[in-house]
C-alpha cells in the first residue's frame, strides 16, 4: 500500500459526512416535534425520516454506486408497501360512504 494514507481517508470521509448530516437531521426532527404544528408535526417528522433514509441508503448502504438490479430490488420493497397502504386505506378511508 503505497498511498495508504489516502486510502484511509477514503474509508471514513464520505460516511463521516453522511453521519454528520444524519445527526443534524435528527436534531431538526427532534426540535420540530416540539413546535405546535398540529397534524404538521407528523408530516415534518416523517419527511425528515424519509430524507434520513435516503441519505442512509444512498451513502452508507452505497445504493448510489450499486447496479440497477439492486436499486430495482430496493424500489420493489417500496412499491409493494405502497400497494399495501393504498389498498388498505381504500377500505378505511371510505368506510363512511
Amino acid at each position, binding site marked *: 500500500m503505497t498511498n495508504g494514507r489516502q*486510502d*484511509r481517508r*477514503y*474509508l*471514513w470521509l464520505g*460516511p*463521516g459526512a*453522511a*453521519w454528520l448530516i*444524519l*445527526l443534524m437531521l*435528527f436534531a431538526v*426532527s*427532534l426540535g420540530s*416535534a*416540539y*413546535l*405546535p*404544528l*398540529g*397534524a404538521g*408535526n*407528523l408530516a415534518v*417528522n*416523517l419527511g*425528515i*425520516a424519509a430524507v*434520513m*433514509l435516503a441519505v*442512509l*441508503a444512498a*451513502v*452508507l*448502504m*452505497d445504493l448510489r454506486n*450499486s*447496479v440497477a*438490479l*439492486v436499486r430495482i*430490488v*430496493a424500489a*420493489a*420493497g*417500496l412499491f*409493494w*408497501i405502497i400497494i*399495501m*397502504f393504498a389498498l*388498505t*386505506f381504500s377500505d*378505511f*378511508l371510505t368506510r363512511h360512504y
Partner: protein
Amino acid sequence: MSDTAGALQHPWPDLRMQRAGVGLGMWMFLASEVLFFGGLMVSYAVYRSFNEDAFRIAGAHAQIVYGSINTVILLTSSFTMTVALRAATANVRQATLLFLGITAALGIAFLVCKGLEYREDLKEHLFPGPQFPLSPPATAMFWGFYWAMTGIHAVHLTAGIAVVLVVWTLFKRRVIPVQGSTMEGVAIYWHFVDSVWIVLFPLLYLAGRS
C-alpha cells in the same frame, strides 16, 4: 492472494460475482423485511388516523431522552459499520476488526439503554393491562404498538449484534478472510435495522411532543 482464494464459495465462478450475489440476496431479504415491518406500519397508520388524540396523549409518555440517545447510538453505529465494510473491501484487516468491534459495542449500548427505558416504562405500568394508567382506551393500543415495534426491532438488532460478533471472531481467527462477501451482507443488514429505527423514532417518540 491465497487469503482471498479461500473466500470463494461453491457455486460461484468468481469472488466479484459472489460479492454481488450476496449483496443482491441481502437486498432481497431486506425487501421482504420492509414488507414485514410494513404490516406493522400500516396497522399503526390505520389506528393513528382514527385515534389522533389518543396517540398524542399516549405518545407524550414515551421516554424521549432514552429514545434520542438510542437514535444517536444507532446512527453512529451505521457510520462505523460503513467504515468497517470499506476497510474490509480494501483488505485493511486491523481497521475492519476495530470498526466492526465498535459497531457491536454500540449495538450492545443501544440494547442496554433500551433495557433501562423498558424498566422506566414498566415502573409507570405502561404495559397494557389492568393497571394501565392512561385513557382513552386507544392509548393502550399506542403502547401495544410501542412494545411490539421496539420489541421486534430489538430482536432484529440482537440478531445483528450476534452476527457481527461471530463474523468478528471468524475474522480475528482468520477462519474467513475479511475481503470475502461476508461483510457485504452483514453491513446491509445492519443499516436496515438502523433504517427501521429512523422510522420508529418519530412514530413512537415524537408523537404528542407539541
